[in-house]
């Protein structure tokens, strides 16, 4: 649809124009019907071409410079054409012959197209940052432009006194000139040019103006269009006048903008850098890339010769150069050697950007010269996060007094953004690491769970049950059963000091050692001695493992065990109202290389009578605390064990657990916990 309109708006004026050309009536002092018809046709053609100004595509408002270049080219082309052919124009309509008439028509068409292009390009410039009044003002201008052209017909055709016609002319011309000025004030596109473009345009404009004025004068004086059509002649002349007025205003505008052009450029660049930084914060979480970007932006914002970023390193208590711009490798190496400790100490108490206009004369900043010799002025911004200074941002220039107040304000705002960006990146990194650690702990926990027996051993006349609860991801508790032969069962319970993946690792090691030894060695004390000797060289000095190893003989109904620093074994009998606490001597695994361990450890053998129950546990059971910080303790465990001793092993296990839960009130508030229960049947079957 839109396409149709522009096709019509092109074809229709063309048709009218062609008819007018064919009417071939020269301008004369005698009113003539055909002449008037011709002028009216041309007027119609102009009027119908107006939409072209709004639809034309030869200068986009995105690219002001392209439109201006085209304008420049057309003006000079027209100027030289006019200059060149001026002499050969026919002086009066009476000298018309066929080739002259053709030349005249061609020139008229060319001038008209030129006028349309000029108005079109001007329209684009005028409409940049348009307001509501812009379209109105421009339309009114066009209206008067066309109306003034039409008035040309009045001149010599109607029977009106010359004075009246002249006054009307001047009045309309006055309005037209005013409108030209109003529209010429719309030169805000200059704001969007950078300094270089402004300077280029200014000089080009200055060069152009004399030619343009001459062109206008030439058109007024010696353009022959008037011999073809007065209306067209006036339209073209006024269009070129508009071009001249607008160009003059633009030139004045450019001149006014020149002094501030650099400042303006800077502001724009600063805003751009700020914008880039804001965008970086939301997209760049890789700390290494972020610091490079920050330094680049700092150097852009301040137009510095050098820029670098130093961040504090928790471990070294020394600032680390994380990113730099234009620093040589040698300077970076020298920085390590001639580290500016005194400057840092001074800066640490400052929260404000520190500007040094003459580095060599500043008592603090002069330390920088030890490794960076060619700096005249430096601006240092502390990066102050929550409660401590996390680093410093440096911008340096070769010249002295090269920074302005503006730079300080800018850098202050900039540093706040930088801190947020760095903090974000750090948090992200931390959370990724935490997640990875979590994942590792899950793997360790999985491994640990695989170390525990999958099912309870089934024995004749003896019931066994056990439970191991871990409070955290990876606990330090461990228990195991080893089938030694058809009537003997190895029982292990242990507790690795400390938690985490290393605990699981030691458990696996101990499990391996015991499995290997238990086949050949039957004495629990000797097995523990050997475990200790094997383990001692491999375990951290501040870690140890408490353990009980025992052998349950089903045929003899005995339990032979040794205790390596572990919690005692409780024995409850249906006949007695108290629990036997079995605590043979022995120190934990990993505390001593061997001599003291071997000397201390004691082996105990007890017999399991009908209905008697053994309880092995880890310290998590007695160290469970309630809200008031009170420990569950051995007494309560013994009490509970006595209370439930007649029950089956599974019931005792569950009841003891519930007993502890009830005491602490919150299941999550206790450590790892392990129970092993061994119970002899009431009646033995053979």
């Amino acid at each position: 649809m839109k396409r149709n309109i522009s096709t019509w708006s092109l074809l229709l004026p063309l048709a009218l124009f062609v008819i007018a050309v064919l009417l071939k009536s020269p301008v004369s002092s005698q009113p003539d019907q055909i002449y008037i018809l011709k002028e009216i046709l041309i007027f119609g053609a102009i009027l119908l071409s107006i939409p072209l100004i709004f639809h034309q595509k030869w200068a986009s408002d995105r690219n002001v410079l392209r439109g201006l270049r085209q304008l420049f080219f057309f003006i000079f082309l027209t100027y030289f054409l006019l200059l060149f052919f001026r002499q050969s124009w026919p002086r009066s309509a009476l000298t018309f012959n066929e080739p002259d008439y053709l030349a005249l028509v061609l020139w008229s068409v060319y001038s008209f197209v030129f006028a349309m292009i000029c108005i079109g390009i001007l329209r684009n410039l005028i409409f940049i940052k348009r307001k509501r009044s812009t379209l109105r003002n421009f339309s009114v201008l066009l209206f008067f432009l066309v109306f003034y052209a039409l008035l040309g017909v009045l001149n010599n055709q109607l029977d009106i006194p010359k004075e009246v016609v002249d006054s009307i002319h001047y009045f309309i011309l006055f309005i037209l000139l005013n409108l030209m000025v109003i529209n010429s004030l719309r030169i805000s596109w200059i704001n969007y040019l950078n300094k270089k473009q402004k300077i280029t345009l200014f000089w080009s404009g200055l060069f152009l103006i004399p030619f343009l004025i001459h062109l206008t004068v030439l058109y007024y004086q010696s353009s022959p269009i008037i011999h073809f059509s007065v209306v067209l002649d006036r339209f073209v002349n006024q269009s070129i006048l508009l071009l001249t007025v607008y160009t003059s205003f633009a030139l004045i505008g450019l001149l006014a903008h020149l002094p501030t052009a650099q400042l303006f450029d800077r502001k724009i660049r600063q805003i751009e850098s700020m914008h880039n930084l804001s965008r970086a914060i939301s997209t760049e979480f890789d700390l290494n890339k972020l610091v490079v970007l920050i330094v680049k932006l700092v150097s852009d914002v301040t137009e510095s010769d050098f820029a670098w970023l130093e961040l504090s390193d928790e471990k070294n208590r020394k600032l680390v150069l994380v990113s730099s711009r234009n620093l040589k490798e040698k300077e970076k190496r020298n920085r390590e050697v001639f580290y500016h400790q005194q400057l840092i100490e001074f800066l640490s108490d400052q929260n404000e950007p520190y500007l040094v206009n003459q580095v060599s004369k500043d008592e603090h900043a002069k330390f920088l010269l030890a490794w960076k010799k060619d700096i005249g002025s430096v601006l240092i911004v502390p990066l102050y996060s929550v409660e401590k200074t996390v680093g410093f941002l440096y911008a340096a220039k070769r010249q002295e007094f090269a920074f302005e107040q503006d730079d300080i304000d800018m850098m202050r705002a900039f540093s706040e953004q930088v801190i947020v960006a760095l903090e974000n990146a750090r948090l992200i990194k931390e959370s990724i690491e935490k997640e990875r650690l979590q994942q590792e702990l899950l793997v360790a926990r999985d491994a640990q769970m695989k170390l525990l027996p999958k099912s309870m051993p089934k024995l004749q006349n003896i019931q066994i049950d056990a439970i191991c609860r871990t409070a955290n991801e990876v606990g330090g508790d461990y228990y195991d059963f080893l089938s030694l032969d058809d009537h003997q069962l190895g029982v292990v319970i242990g507790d690795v000091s400390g938690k985490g993946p290393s605990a699981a690792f030691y458990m696996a090691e101990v499990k391996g050692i015991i499995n290997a030894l238990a086949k050949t060695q039957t004495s629990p004390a000797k097995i523990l001695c050997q475990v200790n000797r094997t383990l001692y060289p491999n375990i951290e000095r501040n870690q140890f493992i408490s353990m009980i190893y025992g052998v349950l003989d089903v045929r003899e109904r005995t339990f032979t065990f040794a205790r390596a620093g572990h919690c005692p074994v409780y024995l409850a009998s249906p006949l007695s109202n108290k629990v036997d606490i079995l605590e043979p001597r022995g120190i934990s695994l990993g505390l001593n290389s061997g001599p003291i361990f071997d000397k201390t450890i004691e082996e105990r053998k007890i017999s399991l009578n009908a209905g008697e129950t053994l309880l092995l546990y880890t310290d998590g059971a007695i160290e469970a605390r309630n809200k008031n910080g009170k420990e569950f303790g051995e007494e309560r465990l013994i009490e509970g064990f006595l209370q439930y001793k007649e029950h089956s092993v599974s019931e005792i296990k569950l009841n003891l657990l519930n007993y502890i839960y009830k005491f602490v009130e919150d299941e999550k508030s206790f450590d790892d916990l392990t129970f092993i229960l061994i119970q002899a049947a009431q009646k033995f079957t053979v």
Partner: protein
Amino acid sequence: MANFQVKRDDSDHYSVLRIGGFLDAHTAPQLEEAIQKLIDEERYNIIIDFKELNYISSAGLGVFMGFIENIRNNSGDIKMCGMNPKIYRVFDLLGFPSLYDIVNEEKEAVEKF
């Protein structure tokens, strides 16, 4: 958990670290730091006073194990005194009495050097 405190008293031939509160995995580094400082100053005769200590975990016990070898190699020792029965029970279960001199009074500990 309540806090942990460590206070240091130096005498001619020995130093006393008076510890109080809760000694567990979180507070153990404080004690480690205090002992490490004594070692750095080559004060190898150390007495730990447990009078004010309310709780000790296995990580807390590990602290003493971590240093004892170094201290004994420099002909020094860690002596312990003033444990309440609950704390002593923990040390006793793990077999520490056969590795360390654990006494009631500071005086006795000094005499052991």
